[in-house]
């Protein structure tokens, strides 16, 4: 019983950054921006959170700064995709490289040694628990926001037919940029969870592909906040299971590959046919 509880706790902890990133993905994709740069959003969020907490000694400021950094990075994608007609996927790949390079470089410049920051003031286990709760609440709140508010309606419309949004007298570019800013802030929070919630430092590569698992969760969750959060939770449980079952005969690489294989399976429609937003990935 206690073990089961431990397992659930571990699954939740594993899932939380995925939930944040997946929610960010849902917001962006429902507005029509296919955001491959979630990984980069997590990275800059984690780094900025740690760096600002180091400089100010205040992890809450770090949290805010991490969200801003995520918003900035993904907002860049939003602006590029709405103002410069970029190809979103290529831009996303570029942003991921940029985020990885810039943070690694900044670690050297700011802290004198490569690889990782020193330990910083973190949010502590209370903060970690709070952020886990925030992730769950955010999923619920976003679902309600999508279904029940004018902004949700506009966002959904924008991901389906930006032209129609334009002729309804709204500016789809603005909506998309706002969506990437909001999504980026949430992805940044996912990064902050890693560096200041679970841990108390930033280390190069610490996001370790979580942004890509989140993309899979978005599909698996059929582009809805609750669905994506649920998928993220399932993927979190898979990783937790991987930890527990390791070396019981199953290759650990296979266990690690499960979320990605699950996403591939989702593409076959076995979890039910869901369509991506019609204008997902279509630049304006």
């Amino acid at each position, binding site marked *: 019983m206690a073990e089961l509880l431990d397992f659930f706790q571990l699954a939740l902890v594993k899932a939380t950054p995925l939930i944040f990133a997946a929610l960010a993905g849902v917001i962006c994709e429902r507005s029509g921006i296919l955001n491959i740069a979630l990984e980069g959003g997590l990275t800059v969020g984690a780094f900025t959170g740690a760096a600002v907490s180091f400089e100010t000694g205040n992890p809450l400021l770090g949290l805010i700064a991490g969200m801003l950094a995520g918003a900035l990075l993904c907002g860049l994608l939003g602006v*590029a995709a709405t103002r410069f007609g970029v190809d979103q996927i290529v831009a996303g790949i570029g942003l991921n490289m940029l985020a990885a390079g810039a943070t690694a470089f900044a670690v050297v*410049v700011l802290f004198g040694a490569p690889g990782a920051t020193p330990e910083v003031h973190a949010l502590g286990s209370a903060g970690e628990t709070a952020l886990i709760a925030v992730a769950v609440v955010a999923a619920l709140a976003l679902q309600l926001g999508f279904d029940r508010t004018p902004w949700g309606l506009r966002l959904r419309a924008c991901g389906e037919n930006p032209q129609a949004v334009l002729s309804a007298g709204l500016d789809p570019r603005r909506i998309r940029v706002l969506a990437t800013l909001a999504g980026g802030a949430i992805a940044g929070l996912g990064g902050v969870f890693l560096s200041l919630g679970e841990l108390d430092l930033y280390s190069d590569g610490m996001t370790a592909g979580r942004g890509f698992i989140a993309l899979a969760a978005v599909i698996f969750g059929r582009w809805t906040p609750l669905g994506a959060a649920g998928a993220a939770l399932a993927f979190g449980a898979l990783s937790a299971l991987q930890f527990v079952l390791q070396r019981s005969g199953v290759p650990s690489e296979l266990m690690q590959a499960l979320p990605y294989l699950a996403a591939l399976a989702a593409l076959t429609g076995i979890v039910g046919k869901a369509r*991506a937003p019609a204008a997902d990935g279509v630049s304006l």
Partner: protein
Amino acid sequence: MSRRNAAIFAAVLLAIAAGAMALAGANPLAGFAALLRGALGGERQLSETLVQTTALLFPSLAVAFAFRAGLFNIGAEGQLIVGGLFAGLAGAALVAPGWIAIPVILLAGAAGGAIWGGIAGALRARFGGNEVIATLMLNIVAALLANYLVVGPFHAPAATGPETAELPVSSWLPVLIPGTRLTISLLLALALAGALSFMFARTVFGYALQAAGEAPQAAARAGIDLRRTALVALTLSGAIAGFGGATLVAGVLHRFNVALSPGYGFIAIAVALVGGLDPLWIVLAAFAFGILQSGSLTMQALAHVPKDVVGFVEGLAILGLSARRIANPREESA
């Protein structure tokens, strides 16, 4: 992007790169000079640049091949890895004269890449699954698979690292210039670029492929089977990338190693787009990125510019170059 915007963008990029170097305590001018000298400064430098060009060229042509058919293959990286893996396994196992072994190794690589691309193609053809996501996921699965096989069942007994056994010397690709790593794979890549260029411009197959990419509904009405096209295009695209992985194994490393690629498959997307998806321009674009790849090593050594700055600048470049429209030249006029 207009020519003027492109110029402004390039200037901004250079400025940011210079700023980053200065921040790192390096002299930007020395950095750029080192970049050029390291890439083009002599026969050896040039040959290394061409090695990088070749390494980029295969996945770039692979990406262009799929894009032309309207399929966003961002899985060239995974296809390259699996191709290299197959080539490494075949090459280590095969004891045969070079004229047999080398083609077999290269074809094994192509087959590996084809399988990996074909999975995405089948998902697309059979279920309409989005190939962007499929190829993205397959990249990660490829890396895990390679690690599992190379550390586990196929680990070379003598090797300390995650790699397969060394290929017999007779199975190495012949070098073009003695004392360098430049092999006939460059010629193969150029020939492939030429063949693809001809294929797109002249052949019925290329015609159908591009029609399916540009106007799927019209193509379907013209008797072009879209599902088959998706399967064939992604499979062949994967085969090209996998072939490239095999040339790295047989020509550069002489074994498969999990660190085979620094992300050639991702940079290839930028290369393909900069080359306007036109094989001949892609050759030039690959050369330009080859300069960056190979010159950046010298930048570290001579100007003490950290490698992360190079990654950062490459990211910026890809971001900027993504601003070229590739899809529909006819903009929605509203």
